[in-house]
């Protein structure tokens, strides 16, 4: 297998899609979703299993693929021993994976910590985009309503474009670019010498700046038939958008990949991505912008 260089490659189109096969009770559902998405994106599908290749596992996977109509010639199954997170990361890198699909638990608890930690570990460190499926269905989920995090970040435009590309392929109808308004120090600064009018003006100015910023980014996209809206919500990053996605019954939440490598301290004092991973509101697409220097304009499909 070639080892194509991932650096500088745009985050979309998804030419190679990997699936993390965990032999969990949801194996069939995750695989079914991956097959449908790969077909929609016209992508090559790779199946990764981290663990020993036992005859039982081999048979189970073959049977599952057959039931889902996936021929063994059309796809590659890669078995490798090791620690799940680094092994999967390495497999994605070696195989030039653009999107890794895996099943994720909505809410972590002590008993489900291990599974949760694999999703977390991958989310923090993956060099490709990730699709975490909370409620996969063997016959495919309807990804109709997307919520995208519209942070003021150079990566955001890539995330919006990647989500639009994905949305066009899976038949999305509505995308909302949401900007979270949280300004540390604002309440403190306004308590000191601000009239009611000034306070109101400051807040509305911040709101319109966020809307205008999101609007500028949306103008760079070619959404096709998808309706794109912009919205601002108050609250701490990660937590506010998680709540919004939940209350608006979104099918997919798309966010930027983390800027820095998250560690234990980020877990103790959770922020951004960690807040979302704590309690996934819906399936989540984490877009990894391999290079922010690439042109933000979406290439025509």
């Amino acid at each position, binding site marked *: 297998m070639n080892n194509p260089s991932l650096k500088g490659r745009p985050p979309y189109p998804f030419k190679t899609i990997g699936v993390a096969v965990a032999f969990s009770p949801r194996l069939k559902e995750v695989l079914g979703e991956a097959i449908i998405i790969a077909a929609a994106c016209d992508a090559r599908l790779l199946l990764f299993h981290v663990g020993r290749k036992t005859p039982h596992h081999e048979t189970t996977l073959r049977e599952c693929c057959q039931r889902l109509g996936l021929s063994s010639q059309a796809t590659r199954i890669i078995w490798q021993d090791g620690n799940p997170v680094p092994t999967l990361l390495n497999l994605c890198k070696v195989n030039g994976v653009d999107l890794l699909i895996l099943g994720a638990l909505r809410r972590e608890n002590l008993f489900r910590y291990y599974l949760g930690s694999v999703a977390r570990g991958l989310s923090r460190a993956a060099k490709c985009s990730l699709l975490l499926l909370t409620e996969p269905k063997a016959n495919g989920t309807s990804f109709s309503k997307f919520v995208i995090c519209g942070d003021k970040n150079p990566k955001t435009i890539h995330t919006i474009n990647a989500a639009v590309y994905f949305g066009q392929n899976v038949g999305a109808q509505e995308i909302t670019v949401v900007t979270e308004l949280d300004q540390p120090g604002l*309440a*403190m600064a306004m*308590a000191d010498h601000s009239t009611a009018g000034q306070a109101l003006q400051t807040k509305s100015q911040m709101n319109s700046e966020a809307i205008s910023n999101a609007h500028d980014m949306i103008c760079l996209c070619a959404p096709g038939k998808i309706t794109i809206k912009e919205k601002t919500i108050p609250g701490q990053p990660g*937590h506010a958008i998680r709540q919004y996605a939940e209350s608006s019954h979104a099918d997919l939440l798309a966010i930027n990949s983390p800027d820095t490598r998250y560690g234990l301290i980020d877990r103790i004092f959770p922020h951004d991505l960690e807040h979302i991973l704590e309690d996934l509101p819906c399936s989540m697409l984490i877009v990894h912008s391999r290079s922010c220097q690439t042109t933000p304009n979406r290439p025509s499909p």
Partner: protein
Amino acid sequence: MSKLSHNDLITLLLAVSTMLIISRIVSEYGKRFGLPLVMGELLVGIALGPTILGHLSPTTHSILFPFASNANFSLAMDTITSLSVIMLLFVTGLEVRLPLVLRQGKIAITTGLGGMILPFASGLALAWFFPQLFNAPNNGPSHAIFALFLGTALSISALPVIARILLDMNMLKTDIGMVILAAAIFNDLVGWLVFSFILSMARQGSGSPATIGHTIMSITAFSAFMLIAGRFAINRILPWVETNLSWPGGVLSLSLGLCLLCAAFTQSINVHAILGAFIAGIVIGDSVHLREQAREIMHQFVTNFFAPLFFVSIGLNVDFLRHFDLQIVTIVLILAYIGKVAGAGVGAKIGGMSWRQSLAIGFGLNARGAMEIILGSLAFEAAIISQPVFVALVVMALITSITSAPMMRYFMKTPSPTQQTRVS
């Protein structure tokens, strides 16, 4: 049991209302000239205190503020100012968002560290090797405590003033604004932890390794417990309180109650009450469930009621003219500017900013404002510093706060608000 008499209560109420009303008028007037709120409050204290009114009309001064002649009044005022400082530290803690420091990553840490290490080292070294410059003791535990204090005093920043400056300059949401805020949060967090240690050492009056170890352990254990277990508990209790109890009464009662509880606890373990209040503020302010409106109410309440009483009372207790020592003021000012601007500037440069941006960040973090005055006031109360050093710290706090915005504008090439108005 000693209690306030009918006349004592009238005097106290009159004094409090005088402090609140006059400081509001002066502060609003000062606002037209871009002066920070705290400046107006201090000026009122200086005008009503021994510095001016005490000289011009000692009888009026002693009738209005009978600190010397009425022990009950003095005790009541002392209680009000103690409560005020606890509340001020609580609302400062409310804005300490640890995730912001983590989000900003390397640059927040290098800037914050640079803005602490150089001022701390320069203040500590000067006070240690040349205590005579500050008329400070030159041996024994007091010498070490004074040196540690001066280092800490020079390394702290004032989050409220910085936030206000950034808001006025429309830089609160910019990258530089975020770096300054994150570094100031880092400075405040470390600075107040170190200062709690110094206060505790000063109170215990012993520099034995066992005492130092015990104090460090108490501060670390309390902070760690509250920041981990306390945050976990608050994140579960707060949503329930917001849903099931009166709004915003329930949240306010819980927040202020927790603040006073933590303050009482830290005071009882021989660490100053401010640490408890500060950590309680962090725990509550960091919660994703705390609504912005509740945060605003707490800030408004403390900034417009407790803060004026505290800052005016500073002027009431200290004669700023008699204790103004030009040498000490000059040394403190030079140390403050060089240490903070150079330290934070180099830190920001290491973090990846340009030199101009780094200097703007350095000057931004140089604003000490109310925090420095609180720090100095507590140190003065604990007999760590003399009146001239306290006066020098107050002067430094005011000058650094006033010069911060113009210097930032110069390096950022941002037009001043008047220029912006003219352009628009």
